[in-house]
């Protein structure tokens, strides 16, 4: 199969919404599953981090985060000029695409595991690091010259937001407890991970279908953007990975991180920091188009490119 079987659950969710099924997954189940996934991803990363020297990550981390800032800075003028979107909307959408999607990352990891392509656990650290900075860039773009941003509120909203707390908390617990300490928890957090991801993707399908409807009023530009942006960002990720001498697996993960658009931390942060931006546009593009695109076409594409750019990766 060209794509991961778990994606079939996403399609089932989409389909159920399309035929207007009464299938509804309660909001609290969505909450519980997303807590589980964030924690499990953090734990897994932390356990593997224990096997590396953390300081070796400092330089690549700086490069990875620095280059990633190109994404919102490049998206913004495109959205503003080409897309003729209001400044607030352009900035908010740029922030969503500069930040990252945890579930897309999880599906990419799963895709690599199915193909026995090794990838390093410390990629989770980049996942955690990439969440925030693009949001700051987005707010800065929205407010440039118009003063009055409550930066402290915003920083608190994101840094104390559940995705950072759970990812970083999981990393830390995994790191402190180490593989031995975590072993009794493996049955829940690692063995069930893929099944839970499948279940979560079913929900995501239901949710994404609703966002597609929101997007209908937005016109073709945003749809094209929501497909073009991840492809360009994915390429940027592959180039950066080549520069940093990453393995094929790590390169695919970095490309996926760059290509993915946030739909957990970014919407919440933008709603507070740039309230005049219309969330239907940013969430509609990120979740209605880019998310399914990455799942079904993007990840296989970045993988295919990474394999064929051989020589570039160690």
């Amino acid at each position: 199969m060209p794509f991961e079987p778990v994606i079939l659950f996403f399609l089932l969710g989409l389909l159920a919404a399309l035929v207007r099924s009464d299938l509804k997954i309660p909001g609290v189940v969505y909450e519980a599953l997303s807590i589980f996934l964030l924690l499990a991803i953090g734990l897994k990363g932390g356990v593997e981090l224990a096997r590396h020297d953390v300081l070796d990550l400092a330089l690549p981390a700086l490069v990875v985060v620095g280059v990633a800032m190109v994404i919102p800075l490049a998206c913004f003028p495109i959205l503003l000029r080409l897309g003729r979107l209001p400044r607030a909307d352009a900035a908010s959408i740029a922030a969503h695409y500069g930040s990252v999607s945890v579930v897309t990352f999880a599906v990419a990891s799963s895709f690599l595991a199915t193909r026995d392509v090794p990838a390093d656990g410390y990629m989770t650290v980049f996942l955690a690091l990439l969440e925030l900075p693009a949001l700051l860039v987005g707010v800065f773009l929205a407010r440039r010259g118009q003063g009055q941003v409550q930066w402290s509120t915003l920083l608190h909203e994101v840094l104390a937001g559940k995705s950072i707390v759970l990812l970083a908390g999981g990393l830390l617990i995994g790191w402190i407890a180490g593989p031995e300490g975590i072993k009794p928890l493996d049955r829940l957090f690692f063995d069930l991970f893929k099944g839970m991801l499948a279940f979560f993707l079913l929900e995501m399908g239901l949710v994404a279908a609703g966002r597609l409807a929101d997007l209908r009023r937005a016109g073709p530009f945003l749809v094209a953007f929501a497909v073009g942006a991840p492809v360009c960002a994915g390429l940027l990720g592959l180039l950066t990975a080549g520069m940093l001498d990453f393995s094929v697996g790590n390169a695919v993960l970095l490309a996926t991180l760059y290509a993915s658009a946030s739909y957990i931390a970014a919407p919440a942060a933008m709603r507070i920091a740039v309230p005049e931006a219309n969330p239907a546009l940013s969430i509609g593009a990120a979740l209605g188009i880019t998310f399914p695109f990455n799942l079904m076409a993007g990840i296989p594409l970045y993988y295919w490119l990474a394999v064929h750019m051989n020589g570039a990766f160690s």
Partner: protein
Amino acid sequence: MSPALTSRKLVTIICEAELEALLVPELARHGARGYTLTEARGQGARGVRDGAWRASSNIRIEVLCDATVAERLVDMLQARFYADYGIVVFVVDAAVLRPGKF
């Protein structure tokens, strides 16, 4: 009305769930002595909010208070949140016990 009861205002606010952290602290700051919150979903000018995830959930907040505070709350909500957020506010007359509490 029972002689034990005194007239107060019940201010009900229906808005996006993500507004909670921003809006709730404002209530106390404008004189509310308490509030009650229930999870909700719904539909309005901004489309369906089906509660499937936090970003499409609503909350419903009730504040019992006197007429002065009610007016202050309504003005604050209008000034701070009406332009940018999905929010609906209405005020009803209610008879309460222990009027000193509200």
